[in-house]
Every structure is written in C-alpha cells, then in structure tokens.
C-alpha cells in the first residue's frame, strides 16, 4: 500500500481498472471515450466542463488530468479559474439553498 490515500502515479493506472472486472471496465472506458468526443459540444468545451466537475467532486486525479487537458486545448488561466468558480458557486449555492428548508422549519415551529 502507498503511504497516502492519493498517489499521483495512480492516475496512469486508471486504465488497469479492468484487471478485476474486465467487461465493466471495458464498457466504462468505451463510454468515457464516446462522451468526450466532438459532438453537439466540442471536445474542447467538454474539457472545461470536466474541469469544473472535477472541482465540484474534488477528485485530485480528475483535477490533474483536466487542468492539463483544458490548458492543452487552449483555455486560458482566467477561463479555467472562472470554470472553477462556477463549480464553487454551485457547491456553495447547493448548501445555501437548503437554508430555505431551515427557514421553513423554523417558521413552522416558531411563535
């Protein structure tokens, strides 16, 4: 076992996931490959979405991969940071919007 839960070298081993369950691994990577192809959205646009989602789910492997990928695909530092702010705003908003639930409850029980 590695000394840390996360090891950056493990990113390169992602493709070995099929070692324990080949069929599902193969299906996942085939699906993954299709998702990121140019289609209604370009591969370039999808890369920036992936970067934002990577921050929302706080996956260090995904952040590593899509920071490189988005920069390679020509997104600027400012554009990439704006995408991260979108993730942060949605995450923050997701917490804050539950405040309505809190308000509803308090209003119901308060005199």
């Amino acid at each position, binding site marked *: 076992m590695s000394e840390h839960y996360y090891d950056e070298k493990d990113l390169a081993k992602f493709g070995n996931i099929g070692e324990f369950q080949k069929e599902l691994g193969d299906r996942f990577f085939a699906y993954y490959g299709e998702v990121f192809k140019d289609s209604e959205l*370009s*591969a*370039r646009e999808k890369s920036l979405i992936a970067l934002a989602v990577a921050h929302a789910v706080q996956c260090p492997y995904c952040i590593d991969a899509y920071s*490189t990928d988005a920069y*390679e*695909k*020509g997104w*600027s530092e400012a554009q990439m940071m704006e995408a991260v702010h979108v993730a942060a705003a949605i995450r923050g908003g997701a917490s804050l919007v539950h405040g309505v639930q809190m308000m509803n409850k308090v209003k119901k029980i308060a005199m």
Partner: protein
Amino acid sequence: MKSLKAQHHSLADARAQLAILAYGQDGSTIPISFRDKLAQSQSYPLKPGQIDTLQINIGKMCNQTCKHCHVDAGPDRKEIMTAETMQQCLDVLRQHEQLTVVDITGGAPEMNPNFRWFVEQLTRLDKQVIVRCNLTIIVANKKYTDLPDFYRKHRVEVVSSLPFYAQDRTDRQRGDGVFDASIRALQLLNRIGYGKEGSGLKLNLVYNPSGAFLPSGQTALEKSYKEVLRQRFSIEFNELFVITNMPISRFLDYLLMSGNYESYMEKLIHAYNPAAAANVMCRNTLSVGWDGYLYDCDFNQMLELKVNCESQHIREFNDQMLKEREIVVENHCYGCTAGSGSSCGGTIA
C-alpha cells in the same frame, strides 16, 4: 536573455544534452529507448523514403531569444551560412529535380545578408520556397519592412510561429512585445494578399505548446485560431501547423529547471504512435546546417548528429548514399511520434 552558448551553459554542448536524453537527470535510463520502441513496431532501422525537401538552416542569428528554441538562436549567435555554401546548395538543387521543396529556416533567416540573393536564385530554379519567418523581423527594422513585398514577388510560402492567439502565452514563450509585433506583421502580410483565399500566397502559422504539455488536436486549434484572429485582429491565414516541443536545447533546460523533464518524457513515450513513426519528416527531408553539413532533421542538426553515411556535406551530396542510409535516432525523436505526430508541417498521423 542570452543564448545558452553565450551563458557558457552546460546544455550548450550537444553531448550533455544527449547524455540527459539517454540517462535522465539522475542517471536512471529512460524506460524504453526510442530505438527499442521503433523495433517493437517493426520500424527500426528507420530508412528514408523519397527525399523531396531540403531544409536549409542559413544561420543561428535571430532578433528573438525564445525560451523553447531548439536552435539556441539569438542576437548573440554569429553562425550564418556563407554565399559559397548557398551556392553549393543551389548546385545540388539544380542537379536533383526530385528536390522540389526548399524550406529555409534559422534563426531569423532574413538576417543572413545573402538571404534575398539566395531566394532569388531558388526562384530561378523553379523550386517551391518556404521561409520560416518569425514575423517580428518584418517590423524590427526599416530594412526589413519590405519583406512582405519581397515574399510576394518570389511567391514564397511564409510559415510563422505564433504559439498562441493571446498575448500572455505568446510573450511568455517568445519575449515581451512579440505578440503585438507579430500581429502587426501578420496584418502587413494580409494587406498584400498573404493568407487570403484565392491569392495563391500561402501564410501558415505554427502552434507549439507554451509549457510542459503536448499539443491538442490540430483541427480544433486551427478553428479557434481562425475565429479569434479574425474577430479580434481581422487576420486571415491558411493552415495551422501544430508542433510538439522537442526535449532539447532551451526547452530541455526549461524542462530540467522546472522539474518537468521526467514527466514530459513519460508523456511522449506513453503517446508513441506507430502511424506517426511511419510518416516522420526525416524520411522525406534532408537538413543542411549553416556550415553545409547534412543531418536527418533540424533537431539532429542541433544535437550535432550528422547523417549516417559518407555523404556528410552538401558539396559531396550523394543521392544514392543518402537514400540508402539509416536515419539517426535518439530519445528526443519521441517528440515527433507522440499522439498525432509532429513535423515542420504539423501533425502527420
């Protein structure tokens, strides 16, 4: 910024570069050598196909000192091709009809005092002439401002580096003010028809990554370049050539200093593409150094790896020997075979 040579930097010595490419920074060998990788895909030894292009480096002198330059070019470099060596190139080109393309590079080739004479002679030989123009030279000094007209008169194909369509990334790689000067030069070229549809005057741009990463797809990048340059600067061009940075000279220095060398080499090796290996430009191009020596490519030239046959100088050009030679490969060659591959004309697979 001074060239590595002027700094007396250890990497100014080609042998030091080759040692790092073979043994890494810490003496650990590369996971798999380029030769072995070629052998795995039944491509070793690498042999030439039909040689139709002579890429001639007429000097290391340049008005810029780019951080990634594989030539280690700059204002402090004095090595330039003489008229005598140019004449030897012309003699070979006259005698070999199959050499239809002449690709002139540098440094800034325009800084060679015999540049214009050389292009005029090439035009008389009816060769397709490409000049790798760094753009800023056109606006660097009054004596160069008529270059666009000179190019047009001789139907020269202009190929120019513009590492990105935004100022910050371009200037970080090529120096302060380079982006703005390049835009002005592109507008001058456009004004006389270069890059315009139907003019027959070709203006191609070159993208190379401004950092330790690989280029993404040529088609998508070309689309972005065209959109942004047209919208922001009313600039038109023909094609975008996407090129991978070779881990040699100043880019190698950058990789080592930034701690990116090992991971960059891993990326290149991981992205090895046998289809790109089959189409590498050294199979149809010969490179001539400023002093007339022959190389498999401009990168081998900078690593001082001469062609592997007795015909090692332009004055003793022997078509048959050169055709039968084995192309010299070392680990920097991974740069040409990664992903969609890389050549002076962009992707190859």
